[in-house]
């Protein structure tokens, strides 16, 4: 049996505990232990960005982070964006600009985009493209995703 650890952290603004295996990824913890399925598995190797979350203000691939390392930290997932007005605007922009097709990459894109805009509110198209470079999308060809993100950035205002 694998070793288990009890950790405590803030998930989407709520303090909580979880018991996780030492080798478990944050992605597996979110999906299988906590039951939040918005964060997606696309590769498990840090290559696709479908599992993007924000930890203490930095966006990262939850498939590459051990669950035990969440201890004491502040974790935000796509579900946590629901209570964020800026994220609402971003979500509406994704919908209105047609940035969603199969939608499998979308939660990761949304996380990356909201983080990007938090860091660079005035991001232009090139900055946005580089900002989502680590997020693969097989359906949209990225253009409408970039348009959606740009439309809520400051340059659009």
């Amino acid at each position: 049996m694998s070793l288990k650890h009890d950790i405590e952290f803030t998930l989407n603004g709520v303090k909580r505990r979880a018991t996780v295996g030492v080798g478990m990824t944050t992605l597996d913890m979110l999906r299988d232990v906590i039951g939040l399925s918005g964060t997606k598995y696309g590769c498990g190797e840090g290559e696709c960005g479908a599992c993007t979350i924000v930890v203490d203000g930095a966006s990262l691939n939850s498939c590459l982070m051990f669950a035990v390392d969440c201890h004491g930290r502040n974790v935000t997932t796509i579900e946590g964006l629901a209570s964020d007005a800026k994220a609402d605007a971003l979500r509406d922009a994704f919908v209105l600009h047609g940035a969603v097709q199969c939608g499998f990459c979308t939660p990761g894109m949304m996380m990356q985009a909201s983080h990007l805009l938090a860091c660079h509110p005035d991001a232009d198209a090139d900055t946005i493209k580089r900002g989502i470079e680590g997020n693969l999308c097989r359906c949209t060809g990225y253009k409408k995703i970039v348009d959606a993100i740009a439309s809520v950035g400051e340059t659009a205002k």
Partner: protein
Amino acid sequence: MNVAEKTKTIQPDSLIGKRIPKMDAPEKASGKTRYIHDIDLPGQLHGKILRSARVHARIRSIDTSAARALPGVHVVITAADIPDQRPIGVAKDHLPLKRDRVRSQRDEIAAVAAESEEIALQALKLIKVEYEDLPIISDPTEAIKPGAPLIHPEPHGADGSHEHLKQGMPVAYAGKPDNIAMRFDYGHGDVAQGEAESDVVIEDTFKLHYVTHCCMGVSGIIAEFDASGNLLMYSNTQVPFLHKREFAEYLNMDPSRIRIIQPPIGGGFGSKLDIYPFEVICVFLARAAKRPVKMVFSREEEFLASPTRQPVLLTLRSGCRKDGTLTFRQVHTLHDNGAYTSWGATTPFVMMQTFSSLYRVPHCDYHTTAVYTNNPYAGSFRGYGNLQATFAIEAHMDKLAEAIGMDPLDFRLKNAQEKGEVTGQGMSFKSCGFKECLTTAASRSDFRRKHRENIRNRNTPDPVKRGIGIASMLHVGGGAKIYPSDGCGTILKLDDFAHVTLITGASEIGQGSETVLSQLVCEELGLPISAVTVVNNDTDITPWDVGVHASRTTFIAGNSAIGAAKKAKAKILAAAAKKFECPEADLDLRGGFIIKAASGEPLIDLARLMRNLHFTEKAELVMTTFYYEPPSKHQDKGFKGDVSAAYAWATQVVEVEVDTETGIVRMTRVTGAHDVGRVLNRLGIEGQIEGGVVMGQGYALTEDLTIENGVMRNPNFRDYKLVTAPEIPEMDISFIESMDGEGPQGAKGVGEAPAICIAAATANAIYNATGVRIYGLPFTPERVYRALHGKAEKPYWKPWKPE
């Protein structure tokens, strides 16, 4: 509705051609959509498959005892445990669990159902398999040679005889005397005569590579039997009704006891048209465990065990006259089928259409042989062979034009098909915007000027050269009559609040079909898009449909939905006419009201009329059904016939920058003109086209599934490179609205079109930039550098067909 009630008239409004956001987008953008990976059933076990450690080998023995003894393991199965398993696939040559032989790296040997994925994976490691290696054939040109080792040899009886199996058995049991999996031979006219009439004749070999779908959501399935033995599957198939029938056959079950529910899908692109071993194996596990079993691939497994686009070796010989008239075309292709036969083997259906009918060609001769090898097996992938065919054709269009000194655009315009033509293959073009596609894409990209200028600039000292290339495509746009039926059913129901439930057989695979179908229904019933709920994912509820393939859904399911809506409208107007004692023709539906057609004056809220209908003595509900079967024909034995109710056209112009010092090709701009019949949802269609363009860019520049001696070298996103956001070209997309007479509101299918010409146009652009033609894909820096520096070997494959 309150606002409208106060106004005196309701102005006509239409949803067609507008930018309508996808109905499922808010859920998806909130992370709330439950994909198959997100569904867990109570009591569910986790299934995992042990795949072959060898490429081609005899299985000597399999020992599963240690795996069975592992705590948490419920079931371990091998072929020996499933004596009734039957071969699956297009040619019935593929046993889900391999019996005595593995033929490729992906082959399934055993499967486990356990309490957790972790335990299942642990159990796989405990299974011991002894192999005896067999010679590996990974080169299709070797595989066709007489005397080549056989991939599917006739099995020997216990006494060494070949005779113990009956004639007519599936290949998996009966074996084959050679490695030929499938062949196609087509012709019209007389190529010898065509060649004799030619002023210029050229011949080249093209080598097309392996790529794979890379759906962002990996494959998965959940299978469960209820207490009465009924099977429920959660599956991402694109063809639920065909699946149901086939599963019944493979499982020796009554099809009516099988139900398929399709959760939202993380990408399809043709990958989910066939039944794959993992699906059948998961059902076997569920049957044995008497518990629901869920099986989800890892990304590596997705690479290893998914179908691919078919690699093709293609030798094309074409000719024309000095005046620019095409004279003939002769094509021989060799398809690497892989170890088993899936839809990839049948891509010649589509390829031959491009050869015979994209341009007017009086004489055409086409031969394909798909040959078994120990490589991954090829399936159906967006474009279905058309990328490969178009790559070759459009290279020759450029070469022929150059040989006779004609402008490449003029040469194409001279030979382009037009409305009203019936091609040598019997395809009849009732709507055709091909010439307009050519001229629109060319003028919007300033093709002629740039093409000439780039040639002049080839010898300037700047190491970065600019190029522009053009290519066009023809693809079915009104379904494809491949199965006995190419139809789709709709059930439409209006409730007493005038809310519509549209129950359609057509699956949503992310392409936005539910939104387009809703639009079409709203257009008939004068309702806003929010008045519709679509049900499209449960075979126990939805009416029959052939499936999502061949860019057919908008056309076929669209016509079906319109049919059902028209019937509902007729019923509503008849009731209203009675109520208001006026002829039906004086009434119409608009803005959720029954209105006077002439003035737009609202008479009654549709919801109220619905309730009136419901609560009168002769109570009635508005529920209609419609089945649409397109007026296309099956092909005859020689592959001739008008197989689609409409055909889609497109021209794409690609601009590149080639760094001659590094071989790096940057795609800077794509100008596309698409004959889509009519734009229904502008937002949706733009998204389809942009996504297709970038998928085509990957095929042209970055994606390359590397198989060496049967072993996949790059089953991950690090080494298999998908295009990322910073690399995308600028895109300029125009729509040619040829208003197809049979299409729903004039529309034709578009799903596959945008991916088809990109690689072909890129090859022409690289030539335009550098004067060097590259005959193989993808245009990686290494390949381009070698070609530019005279280090590339030009592929040559001697035309060959089995006698």
